[in-house]
């Protein structure tokens, strides 16, 4: 396979990462959260703000934290004072897309060292963020039905179960695994030792989606530091290279999507794999953080990324392949289901986790195998974008 489908000037390394606690309601302001993650990332890389040439910031809808032009509100806290500063926003896909935007800042040769920060504070909006989500739908076609965001997931989940004859018990295993993995994550909000029965007995919200199938609403922030090869060699003996990036959008009309298979991710994955020279993702990806706001989405996304054949992800999960000591560990961090889901921050947390896994700095979360190549992925916009980053040591 041709190795490159995008022309770029510089190889890009991740050299530091930072993360705040993920919690339902944080007292810290959006700015204070972003600063904490940014500072941690700089410290971990051994850099100061003076070393940073540009800042990329990501967060999801302004209507969550109730500050319009929220990205601009955050400039000082994210380290962007008097620097070239960019905010990116692609809904739930933002966290990983922030890393992609940081990547092209450096890959293009425009900047040498870039600080990438993602933050979300979902708690200010009352009664609940669901009221904001309602307004992503078509205002004349869908909204008059009183449509709720979970409807989309319920339709997808039901369609996925029907098409591949998947049992709810097998999907529930994802929630059990991720919440257990998160017990070893110091930032985790909803880590727990639960059983499949706990999931199956939890309240049904919109069938087949039940309470324990869903990640929580959260506040939190994450950050990474990127630089070009020349600086990476100066700063660290253990850079983690971003070898491939990809993103792709499916149709905005949710009636027109293949609900059983995430095509948006198939194409985003293909782009990233081509760049990274990966022919067989199932064999060449050692560890992956795939987007898991719902348990079935981990399975969906594994298949979209060709980490499993269509309908095969539940089988791999049942056989323990996706456990930390398995052949293909998926979401060793605990994912959104266990660590929490401050939207943009959750996506960048996944990039940070792969960074720590590949550097073997994940502590109790470290996967058993010796990982060389890892993948982080998120999903968002109007449930139609896939964002992918492939990293290698």
């Amino acid at each position, binding site marked *: 396979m041709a190795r490159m489908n995008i022309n770029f000037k510089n190889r890009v390394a991740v050299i530091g990462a930072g993360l705040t606690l993920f919690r339902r309601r*944080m*007292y*810290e*302001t959006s*700015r*204070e959260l972003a*600063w904490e993650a*940014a*500072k941690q990332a*700089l410290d971990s890389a051994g850099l*100061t*703000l*003076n070393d940073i040439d540009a800042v990329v910031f990501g967060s999801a809808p302004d*209507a969550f*934290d*109730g500050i319009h032009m929220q990205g601009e509100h955050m400039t*000082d*806290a994210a*380290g962007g*004072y008097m620097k070239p500063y960019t905010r990116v926003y692609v809904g739930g896909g933002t966290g990983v897309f922030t890393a992609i935007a940081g990547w092209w800042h450096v890959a293009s040769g425009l900047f040498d060292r870039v600080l990438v920060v993602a933050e979300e504070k979902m*708690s*200010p*909006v*009352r*009664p609940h963020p669901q*009221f*904001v989500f*309602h*307004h992503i739908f078509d*205002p*004349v076609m869908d*909204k*008059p039905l009183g449509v709720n965001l979970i409807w989309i997931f319920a339709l997808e989940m039901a369609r996925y179960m029907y098409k591949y004859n998947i049992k709810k018990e097998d999907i529930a295993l994802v929630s059990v695994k991720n919440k257990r993995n998160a017990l070893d994550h110091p930032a985790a909000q909803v880590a727990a030792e639960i059983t499949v029965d706990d999931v199956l007995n939890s309240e049904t919200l919109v069938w087949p989606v039940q309470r324990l199938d869903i990640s929580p609403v959260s506040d939190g922030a994450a950050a990474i530091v990127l630089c070009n090869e020349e600086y990476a060699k100066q700063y660290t003996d253990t850079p983690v290279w971003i070898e491939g990036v990809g993103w792709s959008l499916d149709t905005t009309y949710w009636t027109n999507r293949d609900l059983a298979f995430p095509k948006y991710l198939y194409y985003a994955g293909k782009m990233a794999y081509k760049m990274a020279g990966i022919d067989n993702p199932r064999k060449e990806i050692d560890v992956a953080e795939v987007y898991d706001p719902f348990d079935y989405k981990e399975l969906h996304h594994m298949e979209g990324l060709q980490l499993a054949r269509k309908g095969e992800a539940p089988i791999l999960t049942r056989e323990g392949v996706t456990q930390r000591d398995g052949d293909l560990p998926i979401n060793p961090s605990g994912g959104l289901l266990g660590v929490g889901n401050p939207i943009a921050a959750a996506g960048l947390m996944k990039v940070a986790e792969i960074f720590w896994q590949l550097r073997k700095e994940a502590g109790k979360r470290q996967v058993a195998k010796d990982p060389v190549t890892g993948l982080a992925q998120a999903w968002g916009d109007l449930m139609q974008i896939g964002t992918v980053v492939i990293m290698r040591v």
Partner: protein
Amino acid sequence: MSVWDVFNGKTRFLEDNMNVDKFVYTLGHGYEKFFNGLKEGKIIASKCSECGVTYLPPRIYCEECLSEITEFVEIKQNGVVLGYTIQNVDKDGRHLKEKVIWALIGFNGVRGGIFHKLVGVEPEEIYVGMPVKPVFREERKGSINDIQYFTKTV
């Protein structure tokens, strides 16, 4: 088709609003110190021990170096007018019976300032650099309105 055709019955439209009841904004650790200070009739800033920059309102991090700021200091309340404007109409476009003077107040050695009302000064006599001071309310509850207004220093 013009939107006015809507009223001629030529097309239909739907109305909706963002059904958000409210937003609950936390003060955070920096602003909390500021508002607690106002309650006590004080103006509190924060000072970066690395760069020496003093921030008003106080932040828990330095925008110059991103260091954590843990030092909170009470500043002298004598300020100066850095800029001002005179409000003639309210946000609905209605003329005000009494004009309102709004000023950005700066303090010596401090980065930032306070934007507030200026009272007891005639528009003709204001100038940039004019010394002013805050007048606090008797009853204070930790709000920017604990300062009733700024007025000229006699």
